């Protein structure tokens, strides 16, 4: 196992860890989005889905631990890489022109840290009920947790909806560069596919952004309400 540690300590190895855990996190984000979009199908469908997830028991905990592991590795390695990069250029230029990099590529760390803060808020908001302890008390007729009601009431607050939308813009920036970058980091690129791989990050990021923000927007517009979905 010595070689694993050595590999992960190398620049390319550490980047491969960031890319692989990034891919795993993207998988989670997409699955989470598909789950959330069921809000549009109304309370019954959504609460069934939420109850189904909660009933997974040990599987749910395995998934949560896996996610936590990926998150910790992703952030840990990314921060380590970034601090090495800062150390590699201690004196900056008086004049420096960007010719190829983008705002997204230059703000991966800032975007990442913003995402981390958002994830903490998000967990406190909907999973732990810190923002409003009432949230965890809502019950359906079956006696399950009424996740539908919780989500809708949560997003009826305009500042909360705005915060989520802003955070999703941050996520989209992160993924716009990150997803395309991931292929290059893992050595999966070729001149023939370069335009495709360049485009896939921004395209996926845009889809994920639109998917997620459709929910707070629909709640704010009353398209999704306590009475039901669209």
């Amino acid at each position, binding site marked *: 196992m010595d070689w694993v540690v050595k590999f992960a300590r190398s620049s390319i190895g550490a980047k491969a860890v960031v890319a692989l855990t990034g891919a795993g996190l993207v998988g989670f984000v997409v699955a989470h989005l598909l789950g959330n979009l069921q809000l549009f199908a109304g309370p019954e469908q959504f609460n069934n889905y939420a109850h189904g997830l909660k009933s997974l028991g040990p599987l749910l905990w395995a998934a949560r631990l896996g996610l936590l592991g990926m998150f910790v590795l992703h952030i840990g390695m990314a921060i380590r890489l970034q601090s090495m990069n800062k150390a*590699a*250029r201690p004196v900056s230029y008086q004049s420096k022109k960007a010719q190829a990099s983008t705002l997204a590529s230059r703000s991966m760390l800032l975007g990442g840290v913003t995402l981390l803060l958002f994830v903490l808020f998000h967990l406190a908001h909907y999973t732990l009920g810190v923002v409003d302890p009432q949230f965890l008390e809502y019950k359906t007729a079956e006696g399950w947790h009424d996740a539908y009601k919780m989500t809708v009431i949560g997003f009826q607050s305009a500042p909360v909806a705005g915060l989520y939308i802003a955070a999703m813009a941050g996520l989209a920036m992160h993924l716009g560069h990150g997803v395309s970058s991931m292929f290059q980091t893992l050595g999966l690129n070729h001149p023939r596919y370069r335009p495709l791989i360049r485009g896939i990050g921004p395209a996926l990021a845009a889809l994920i952004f639109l998917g997620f923000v459709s929910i707070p927007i629909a709640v704010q517009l009353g398209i999704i309400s306590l009475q039901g979905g669209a």
Partner: protein
Amino acid sequence: MNLTLNVWRQKGPDDPGRMVTYSANNISPDMSFLEMLDVVNEQLEEKGEEPIAFDHDCREGICGMCSMMINGVPHGPDRGITTCQVHMRRFNDGDTLWIEPWRATAFPVIKDLVVQRGAFDRIIQAGGYISVKTGGAPDGNAIPITKTQADKSMDAAACIGCGACVAACPNASAMLFVAAKASQFAHLPQGQPERYRRAKRMVDQMDEEGFGNCTNHYECEAACPKEISVENITLLNRDYIRANLTGVE
């Protein structure tokens, strides 16, 4: 033409250094950038001041010695050329130019615009070669190579080791240099026996020298005077990962 130059002056490795403003007057638009600096230096010497130190040798874009940031871009504003190939007609009368050395921990400033690029030599020594047996000269056409592979190898081999990739990279990463030097061999049959070992050793040496890591900004490709593609970095990533997964020493 008359120009204002902001030039990095630093007496030696331990001097903190600073930007100094000079005026360059009566510059012919037909001069090369280095000739313009020669004129400025003559004027400085006439005044008894220390001339601006800068690296140069061939002055025709093939040796890779010249190395300076001109207005925030390595080798100046035009793509695919070195500083010595920049002509003053590229600028306008009255322009202000910012001239700085490459900035990287692995490239310490020796004096003014001259940096120590020995780190590149150590990366080459670590693996940037092929081993050949001595003996009778082999027949040049004995080993078949496809045109595509030969072209890719030659494109990578165009690297003159100037360090513009490091200078341009927001992370001061040397990945484009290392990738070019590894893939010029990785594309050829003669490079196969040491291919994965080469990738491993060169990258490990690169890390040791204190270069940053590639985060795929692709500034290097835009700055490279030989327009070397980041496709070479893809190949290096793949070979390095494979070398580690399969335990190549």
